[in-house]
């Protein structure tokens, strides 16, 4: 029975090691095959880790450089911009100079109101009025405008695709759930 197995493997892998024979060949070939499998698996793991690393760290880094802002991605966590932006959407933010901001732009600004010290909040609303030192925004779904925002608090403008902001539906739900968990 054992000899059958050896000869079977011997013929199967004879091209790998044709100088040896018998039991020794069997163990040698088996070890080589096992090592080859392990190396193959390790190679796969390295490739997967590289892909995940590129997505998790590389993509935000690339977007930060490309869009010129430290906050290139934002998740929509409220319905104040409905129906243009939906809860769970992911939008891309690009840096914008003060002189390029226009009425009608959807901008992101830093909003620390009502948040504990050290925590950052962001508001994504549409610009309704521009003045020398501040601007005023309002959510499309809201009836009242926000408090005036200083230009230095503006982080950027949503990246547009035609007339509408470029949005990736459902991809922002991770942030929505994280916000819900924090609130609970």
């Amino acid at each position, binding site marked *: 029975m054992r000899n059958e197995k050896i000869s079977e493997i011997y013929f199967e892998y004879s091209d790998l090691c044709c100088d040896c024979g018998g039991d020794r060949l069997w163990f040698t070939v088996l070890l080589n095959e096992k090592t080859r499998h392990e190396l193959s698996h390790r190679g796969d793991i390295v490739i997967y880790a590289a892909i995940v690393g590129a997505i998790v760290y590389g993509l935000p880094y690339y977007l930060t450089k490309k869009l010129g802002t430290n906050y290139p991605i934002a998740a929509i966590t409220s319905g104040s911009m*409905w*129906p*243009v932006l939906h809860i769970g959407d992911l939008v891309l933010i690009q840096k914008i100079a003060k002189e390029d901001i226009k009425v009608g732009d959807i901008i992101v600004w830093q909003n620390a109101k009502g948040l504990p010290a050290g925590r950052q909040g962001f508001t994504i609303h549409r610009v309704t009025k521009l003045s020398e030192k501040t601007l005023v925004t309002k959510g499309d779904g*809201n*009836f009242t405008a926000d408090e005036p925002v200083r230009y230095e608090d503006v982080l950027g403008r949503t990246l547009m695709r035609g007339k509408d902001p470029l949005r990736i539906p459902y991809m922002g739900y991770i942030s929505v759930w994280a916000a819900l968990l924090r609130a609970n």
Partner: protein
Amino acid sequence: MDDEVKQNFWQKMKRGEKILAVALVIVFLFVFYIALDANKYQATVHVIEGEGKVGVNPTTERLDFGDLSPGTSAIRRVDIENGTSIPMYVAVVNLGSINDLMKINKSSFTLSPDAKDVIEFTVYMPASAPIDATLTGRVFIFKIPKPWK
């Protein structure tokens, strides 16, 4: 002939494959039962022009929020009862265009045996709602047996 093929197919399967096949069938039946047993409601709301206007369409078969003008809201309630002797995990899933405007007071909770609870659905019409539009959706209330704590 078919029986013979089936028998051969089953006999040809390894023990592990048989266990996996049985487990998959049980999981499928479990999911099928939960989907079949779920409470399903159609949700709808109609946007009307004006300020503070609300029209009500009383019905128990649908979650009909009636006619709402921007700035107004309507609430619909669903009573849920666990008539079994094991706790049930209740999960509410809503889909459709009404989804963005609908808030649910509790989207998942555990209902003890013989206990009752109320799920509250609120639709608020924002300023940007398109006049004369009808927003619809589906609401599913899944009840999953939860014998563990």
